[in-house]
């Protein structure tokens, strides 16, 4: 399932880039993400809690920075996680693009392509789309908060 979400954050591209590519630092901005720990080069493990309707998902797995190009402002991540209790897993390719809008405004384009396996496939796509969009909005709000100059 492919989703594209966009959001604006109040910082220039370089500042935004430095934050979003520093996964331990950006982790608190990701709704439901916890316990992020480095596990080899450009790879981190952690857990992600999400709820869509009756289904409460506790995913544990890893996220890896597959490619990054600071000049273009583009990065690719691979997220692989499973919920053993539910008996399901996700594999998500995340394409992130940062587009400078002005000196203190950057647009994030987040394209996720997710394969749902096992029981996670049983949820309806429309509700997942809606929840994913809401999660990205929350991420953007958190990110904007983190980027806003203190004081």
């Amino acid at each position, binding site marked *: 399932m492919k989703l594209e979400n966009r959001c604006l954050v109040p910082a220039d591209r370089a500042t935004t880039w430095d934050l979003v590519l520093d996964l331990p630092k950006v982790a608190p901005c990701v709704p439901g993400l916890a316990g992020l720990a480095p596990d080899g080069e450009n790879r981190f493990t952690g857990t992600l809690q999400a*709820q869509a309707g009756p289904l409460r998902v506790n995913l544990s797995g890893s996220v890896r920075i597959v490619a990054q190009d600071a000049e273009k402002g583009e990065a690719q991540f691979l997220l692989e996680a499973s919920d053993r*209790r539910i*008996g399901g897993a996700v594999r998500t390719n995340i394409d992130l693009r940062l587009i400078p809008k002005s000196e203190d405004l950057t647009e994030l384009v987040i394209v996720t392509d997710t394969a749902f396996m096992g*029981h996670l496939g049983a949820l*309806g796509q429309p509700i997942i789309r*809606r929840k994913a969009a809401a999660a990205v909005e929350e991420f953007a709000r958190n990110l904007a908060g983190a980027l806003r100059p203190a004081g």
Partner: protein
Amino acid sequence: MIDFQLHLPNSLEDAFALLEQYGDDARLLSGGTALILQMKQRFAQPGHVIGLRRLPGLGDIGETADGGVRIGALCSQRRVETSPLVAGRLPLVAQAYRQVATPRIRSMATVGGGLAHGDPNQDPPPALIALGAAAILSSAPDGNGNNGGQRILPVEELFLDYFDTDVRPGEIITGLVIPPAPAGSGAAYLKFLPRTADDYATVSAAAVITRDADGHCREARLVLGSVGLTPIRATAAEDLLRGQPLTDATIRAAAATVPAAVDPLEDHRGSVDYKREMAQVFARRAIEQAAGSAAG
């Protein structure tokens, strides 16, 4: 289904104690038509299931002092549908419960369980919201700073999100209170059911219209089901009707605000646009029918 421990408390106090003890790992079971299905699909995997069927005194239907109806949470939906008291006082409620699934499911499913389920596709909530009904949420004496109290929560405020309700940790829905229908009011619940008779609605609409002495609309309540993450009250339509003569033009103008008020999910019953349009059509018909039966 993942294994779990089943508890069958004999009193509300014991049920509260179990909820307190097991917290997030516990789910309440009444008729089971929702929870057991979710557990079979592994959507819900509680370690503890607290069955409520032995709790005394929660299965009755009675009248309230103001002429409304009070329904115990463990009352089956079929009992509501067939209750002479409900049919006499609040025919809209009987009609809405009668639309739920099949007689077998209605014999199993309970009023409280249906509310706690928080499924926006159910039939009763739009009718209950249109009538101004409230859920009774009970909790143990030391819970949330109350002293063993009851929280009376309008059904309109119960549903927070898709399958998510404002039933707080430690609370159990113990009843439903529905005020008497306003004098001079008419009501309708319409369920658009193009597929099979036991399906969820593609869209549903409940309307309660009260006329004043001139026959104008004094009060209007319009609630749509199956077209959002929760039931949706169409307040813009209500505002356009209030104080107006109930003509074809005013009713159509009110219904025309409905597509913008709803927020449907696409599924095998129809696209988002189709559901928006059907919501308008069924809103109009529900208002017409309610207005037609409202006595000036």
